[in-house]
């Protein structure tokens, strides 16, 4: 299972990198969202998957999955949501101000020569 998920993580990362390298601002944000999915899965996977029941104390159950990576990922999900939301509004405002979402048209014009 871990090997399978690792490959999925690789594919997600690959798609994320490809999107982040594109020109469109919206695609770049989609890329970052994919990145965060990959990272969350990676944290869970490297800690080991399905080692027991869900980490809620139930009488008679001895094996639980590791609660710590889950707590970490939960924190990460919320933070990445906050950042994504901020980015999205930033992209929206950028589009309003500059009338483009093409990164290559957003190059600064000042020169230092």
């Amino acid at each position, binding site marked *: 299972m871990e090997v399978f*998920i690792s490959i999925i993580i690789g594919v997600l990362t690959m798609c994320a990198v490809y999107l*982040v390298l594109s020109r469109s601002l919206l695609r770049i944000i989609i890329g970052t969202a994919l990145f965060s999915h990959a990272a969350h899965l990676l944290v869970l996977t490297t800690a080991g998957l399905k080692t027991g029941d869900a980490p809620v104390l139930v009488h008679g159950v001895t094996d639980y999955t590791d609660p710590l990576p889950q707590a970490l*990922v*939960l924190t990460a999900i919320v933070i990445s949501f906050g*950042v994504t939301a901020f980015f999205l509004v930033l992209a929206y405002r950028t589009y309003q101000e500059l009338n483009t*979402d093409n990164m290559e048209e957003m190059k600064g014009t000042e020169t230092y020569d």
Partner: protein
Amino acid sequence: MSVLHLAILLPLLAAPFIPLFFWGLKRIHTGWFVLIVPVLLFTYFAGYMPTTSAGEVVTKTVSWMPSLGVEFTAYVDGLSLLFALLITGIGALVVLYSIYYLDKDKESLGHFYVYLLMFMGAMLGVVLSDNMIVMYMFWELTSISSFLLIGYWYEKERSRYGAQKSMLLTVFGGLAMLGGIILLESMVGSYSIREMVANQAVIAESPLFLVAMVLILLGAFTKSAQFPFHIWLPDAMEAPTPVSAYLHSATMVKAGLYLVARMSPVFQESPVWLWTIASVGMFTMFWGSFNAVKQTDLKGILAFSTVSQLGLIMSLLGLGAAALHYEGLDENIYMVATIAAIFHLINHATFKGSLFMMVGIIDHETGTRDVRKLGGLMTVMPISFTVAVIGSLSMAGLPPFNGFLSKEMFLKATTKVASMDFFALDSIGLILPIVAFIGSVFTFIYSLLIFTRTFMGKAKFELLPKTPHEAPVGMLISPVILAILVVGFGLFPNVLSHSLIQPAVEAIYPSLVAGGEEVEVHISFWHGLTPELMMTIGVVLLGTLLFWQIGRWMGIYNRIPHRLTLNGMYDGSLVWSNKAAYRFKDNYMTGFIRSYLIYIFVFLSGMMLFTMAWLDLFNFSFENLAEIAPYEYVLGAVVVLAALAILFMRSRLPSIILLGVVGYGVALFFVFFGAPDLALTQLVIETVSVALFLLVFYHMPDISKKEVRMRFKIGNAMIAILVGATVTMLSFMALSNKSLTSISEYYKENVYELAAGKNMVNVVLVDFRGFDTLFEIVVLSLASLGIYTMIKFRTTRRTKGEGAHEAQKQTRQ
């Protein structure tokens, strides 16, 4: 803090008060207040003469940074005292001269004297410090104050150019010297020069001996304007003339000579020392004198002549090392080189100082320093003429002036060294006296040029900006005093022998002195028909001949194109390095975020894969892994296909929906992994995110019109695959190397007993690791505040973008 320390720091302590005098007492020239400082110091240091001539030294220490081995140790021996007297003595004369040279109403004297006092204090610190770090500190302070003084008339472009050039070159050398100092410290374990001299054998055996020596010499050569670093000195002539007289003839340029003399006991056992210094000095002597002849600016002639004379002294300091290798005669004849060096050092300070002041007078009274415009001033400026003749003839090395004596000793040293039979000198040692001879011929020629072109010949007063007349008495005092010294030292050379020269020479040969050898300094005016006297006669004859025929051979100077001269190379290298840096910057700072992301991705993956290969971490082993249910394969396939499909979407709307598919797929995975809280959060957040994406998409309606499919780029794809593969490898590596058990056993055991909760994830979030949650809440608040401000607050009205936006809307309608 002893009186000695206060004396060293006195100029620096006095400097802040100078502007007060300048602004407060407008009627009196500020220089009069400044004059007190060098006069006081000169009398104070003169009081040390009996001590040092008795062979004693004075050491006073003030603790500065004891944990780093940096102590401000003042150390007075013959060599330091000689320099201290030069600095304060010439300093006093220069300040007196500057009072009449600089106008108190037109010049910002407050600045000038602050810089000058800074320089004086720094210079005293250099020659009186025993600790090399303290010495380096003062050394750089001389560079900085010299920079400020050269650029004193900062409105002039040439001044700024000269200041920058001297700063670049001397600081380059200074930093090299710092490297040498640190190397020496690592060998000896102390920054003290006396410790280094005492442990000279340890340094000589170190494998880094040569490196340290070259680095120290770089510092000395750049400061003392030795070839090829002499190029800053002629451009430093843009400074006011008192500055040129003080810094660039008598004191600062001798800091390098001081350093070489001071470090001689440490390095001079090595033949490389003798060879490097003697040959560089000798070539500098020739090159400076050769170039001085072609100058048309009086200060230019003096600048190159300074270079030449410094080379002469430098080569003598190098040749002096031969004294250590010669035993067998009762009288150590090679010591004459060092005696000559010290003697010429004093002589040069006197005659060059007087010449610079004389040139300043001419500039002041006629308005030009160009020898092509000058001439026939002898009758109008008789005193200046006398000073110029005395100075020039002393520089040329003619009797009865002091330059004659030191030039004789110089020629004697070179001829003697040529007959040495060690260090391979027997075969090529003959070059030294020949170069010395040629250099002396050119020295003779330019010395004659200085006063013949200026004071003799036809008067062309109508070409001059001002009507020439003799300078005021105050301006003449300093050059006349120096000229009297020139004649005085020439006629009675031994007045200085025991009081100054002998202790200074003893400081250079501590091992010989300790071995019981007497340093016998006796400078005789007439010493019979010696080979060096013949050489002097030859110099005079050949020099006169060439001077007479000067029009015929001046053409050779125009043969070298500017690009190939040292100045041309210096300018070229500045331009080139500037251009190269810009080109380099323009090549990788493209301004596209894509380029920077590529650098980051490639670097990270490359480092990761390289490290894994380096540590041989590719042998994965997968044990005790979880089983995969068939529906999980299906879910995995859906996530992968959705992610890949995003790449091929033409429009953005399907991309957003596909992103939602991936998010919900991940949430389902969380369910399978036994993470209900994660699944819940992920579902909610994915929903909100997709809604937000759609909102933004909805508010960017114009985009959909322009939408095109992402063009496939092979480079991007390869980088993407590389990063993806790296992350998978990273995951494999983590799975294959599990060495420690999880800390979570503690949480599992104590979640109910200690925290009274059954949901472990929630207890970890709010109890065991509650701080994370607190700041995660802060992140969310900040994000929402940020979004609010972005939408609500606009400090600048929309200008160009908005206008274009509106215009587009209108055209569409």
